[in-house]
């Protein structure tokens, strides 16, 4: 099965951390799941201040500044991984450096086709 691992953290908390050390940890983690074959895709998102939310209402496109949900923790990136089952996906999610101070949401992906 494929799982999307959505990485959430409070940007102000994240900003106070040693970026170099965190990025190095992410490098090691990513290399590990590429070698194990679990890696499908990953991206880091720019800060939530750059977000625009789009809705279509009455046929009109409405764009508003900011994220869709005003939550304490913001979506900062994701990994798409292949895992045998939820336990395996959770084990991978637990190795993501941000899990220590933020949170990782594990979502199964619909199989299309």
């Amino acid at each position, binding site marked *: 099965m494929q*799982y999307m691992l959505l990485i959430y953290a409070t940007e102000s908390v994240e900003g106070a951390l040693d970026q170099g050390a965190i990025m190095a940890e992410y490098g090691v983690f990513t290399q590990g799941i590429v070698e194990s074959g679990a890696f499908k895709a990953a991206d880091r998102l720019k800060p939530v201040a750059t977000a625009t939310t789009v809705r279509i209402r009455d046929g009109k496109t409405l764009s508003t500044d900011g994220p869709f949900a005003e939550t304490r923790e913001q979506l900062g990136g994701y990994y798409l991984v292949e895992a045998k*089952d939820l336990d395996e996906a959770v084990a991978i999610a637990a190795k993501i450096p941000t899990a220590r101070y933020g949170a990782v949401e594990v979502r*199964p992906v619909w199989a299309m086709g």
Partner: protein
Amino acid sequence: MGDGVGLQLDEAFRRHGPEALATLIRLTGDFDLAEEGLQEAFAAAAVAWAEAPPANPRAWLVTVGRRRALDQLRRRIAFRARQGELEALAEIERQAAPEDEGDTAFEGDDLLRLIFTCCHPALSLEAQVALTLRTVCGLATAAVARAFLVTEETMAQRLVRAKAKIRAAGIPYRTPPRELLAARIEGVLAVIYLVFTEAYAGEPGRGLGAEAIGLARRLDALLPGRGAIRGLLALMLLHEARRPARHDAAGDLVLLEDQDRGLWDGAMIAEGLALVGPALTADAPPSPYAVQAAIAALHDQAATAADTDWRQIVALYAVLMRLSPSPVIELNHAAALAMVDGPAAALRRVDALAARGALAGYEVLPAVRADLLRRLARFDDARAAYADALSLARHEPDRRYFTRRLAELGE
């Protein structure tokens, strides 16, 4: 069919149903399909067993249930061919049927898989409890709904959602590997203990106490020698043994110190006592369940309330506070301390605890305060505390008890 056969069938279903279901879920990979197959196997058994009862009822139920599940899938496919169902059919046909009717080596393994899947931490605690009672204990949905004071429809939806999450999220049907096992056992024990405490605090005679003990017994047999499992089993047995004395003829609550100890279940106490030692020494440090069982054992061993070894109980609560500190343990510790150092010393601790606010809304805190104040002859304060306890009580026997205490203190 005679009544004798009907009774035998009921007994066989109750004994073998959960294990047959556990194996059918492994074979079909689908909770609903397995349940439907087993239902049809039960119906077939009502006819077939009246003529010739099988040597191995569980294997019979699995063989027939698997065949009926396959039929069910074929009917669905004939109705609307779906790729997923074709694959499921191929998978079940690939899985070997249980040929050897004498082979019972795998039945415990399947039951463990079922227990760990129902108690998976990715499910909400209430879903874990509902699934466990429905599938592992084999209780009817209506009975599970009654136990948790929700409608049958609400409970049915809860079960549907839980099974859908197992399927969609890819929760594995397996006993967890060694590195996850200890933590996952704790999760299963939390579910069993919740079932037990819900039964214990509520109206008598709901039967969930026996289900919780039965689950712990099975778990102890399947994963022997684990202090936490054995400790919880001992703890529940030592409490359940007092059930016949916990309520009077009118259904009112009788406190431990006032109970007729002759009504306690001696066999259950003996079974519990025999487990306490092994449970305490299985791990270092011991599981908190084992320490709580040791405390319950000291109460059960006292011939009269006055014979209770309160010094040792206080010492065990101190151990428990180090192992798993919580405001509830702290409150129990203070209540036990009253029996050694007197009510005034205990009241100072309870008041300090109340001032921290960690137990706001918990009716046992004002109840303990009220009892200490009563013993200190501070009757006005005691009345106010009982009134607080009464306003917070969730269960009818507790409400009647606090009302009675208030009446005894006068207006």
